[in-house]
């Protein structure tokens, strides 16, 4: 029964082959013929690839190693516990020391930040309200002006109709409408009347 080669041994074999056979052979060829640079590179990369694979296999072997796992697992747990104790001690010491020397605590700064954030939110909301109110007001003004104009025109038509029914000349009846003042010519004095 043949024993199967482990991947790490396989890669080790490739590394030895590349560094002890391929590389010297390629270097010698380059020295003698002077034109085979590619072969040296190829052998170099072959060695590098084998080295990377060995390194991967080694880290894999380390992870599967029970003793390493125990140490790493306990180390992580210990580091976390120490951190927790450190946090608790720091909170206890600085929690009392800080206010004594007149400095604000982290939670006070956080509260202040929250207050500032809330205030800026309020300001933004108020700004939005003012913006909306101003738009609504100008809409209302426009609407009122439009309805007043409509009422004036309606009154005029009514007056004309009543005058017509009484046999009067429509042009003679004033309906209360005041036409807007005529616009001045933009050109002013330079314009020429033809």
């Amino acid at each position, binding site marked *: 029964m043949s024993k199967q080669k482990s991947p790490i041994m396989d890669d080790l074999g490739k590394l030895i082959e590349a560094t002890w056979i391929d590389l010297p052979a390629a270097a010698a060829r380059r020295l003698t013929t002077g034109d085979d640079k590619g072969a040296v590179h190829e052998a170099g990369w072959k060695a590098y690839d084998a080295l990377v694979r060995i390194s991967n296999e080694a880290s894999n072997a380390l992870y*599967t190693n029970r003793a390493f796992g125990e140490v790493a697992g306990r180390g992580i747990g210990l580091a*976390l516990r120490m*951190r927790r104790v450190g946090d608790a001690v720091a909170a206890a010491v600085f929690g009392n020391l800080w206010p004594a020397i007149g400095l604000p605590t982290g939670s006070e700064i956080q509260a202040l930040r929250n207050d500032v954030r809330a205030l800026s939110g309020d300001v933004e909301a108020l700004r939005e309200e003012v913006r909306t109110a101003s738009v609504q007001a100008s809409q209302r003004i426009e609407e009122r002006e439009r309805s007043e104009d409509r009422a004036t025109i309606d009154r005029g038509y009514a007056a004309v109709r009543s005058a017509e029914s009484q046999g009067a000349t429509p042009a003679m009846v004033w309906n209360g409408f005041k036409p807007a003042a005529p616009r001045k010519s933009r050109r002013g004095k330079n314009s020429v009347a033809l």
Partner: protein
Amino acid sequence: MSLFNDIAGHWIDGAVRTLGAIGRGFGSDISADPAPVTPYDVIYKGGKVSLRHYRARNRIHATPIVLVYALIKRPFILDLQPGKSVIETLLKQGFDVYLTDWIPPTREDAWRGFDAYVNQDLDNAIRAVQTAENVAQVHLIGYCLGALLSLIYTSLHQQNVRNLITVAAPFDMSGRDLPIYHLMDRIDESAIELITRIHGNCPAWMVNSMFTAMSPTHHALDKFVGLYRNAERDGYAEMFDLFERWMSSDVPLAGRLFTELTGDIFKRNLMAKGEFKVGGRVADVKQITCPLLNVIGEMDDVVHPKSSLPLSEKVGSADRRNLTFPTGHIGVAVSAGALKKMWPEMGAWLADRGQVGN
């Protein structure tokens, strides 16, 4: 010397990027996302989800797709570049797509567990789609942790789902095929409890560290060497930058969800056992009766294929299938092969089952 200078330069860039990510709390700032490739509208925002709507130019299918993204990292990986976008691929097939963009939780959200994410946020999002589209059911596609959310949602709300596709679903966590799983086994639950007591949530840097620990050599050196070796390839450097941006876009995991995920799903494997309770109800995949397509990356080193494979045997659906593809965990979303073959196949599978009665 150019080799060492270039690689050192890339390495320093990477270190600066990581420090920047630590400084801003990784991906917790949504505005740090790159500009979207495909335009969208946000049609619903509530709880911790913002629902994006991507419209197909030539819509063929009446039933829309709801794409449930993972709670880890930002979703721009699904819409990375023109021609390298899952969203674009689905739109081209004539589907309207809705994507869950999970809002990073703050300390006040530490109470949120699977119940809040599934029975409130995801349920509300799907209700918003039903209302907007005037449809009774949607196609659900879940990716990674999003696949787990989709599984739980479909188990509890089967009537709303026409077809379910899970991509890289962490379902059966009984195996210890990935080395990192062994390490996680050694971290006891009191330590997990302490993380949430100290930080409220599982911090983004911790999530990022877990990913980095999965392949330390790659993150410390090999990816920068890879950038050097592929510098001549068209668009590689640009893609590398975007990808790195995504890798450092981790978001915190809500405290309760983190506890449930590590304890109930990972350590006790309650989901595969059909005993995981969400909001007082058991989320048993036997209750899933709609067609299921279980997509698995053969080289997935984040969710091992053996974690996803048993799903199709456990669901109650008559129409169920595994689709394996030679790619890794992230390759299912960004590799050229997956976008060219796998996602179109998924679209075709949905199209075949789009009509009522099929």
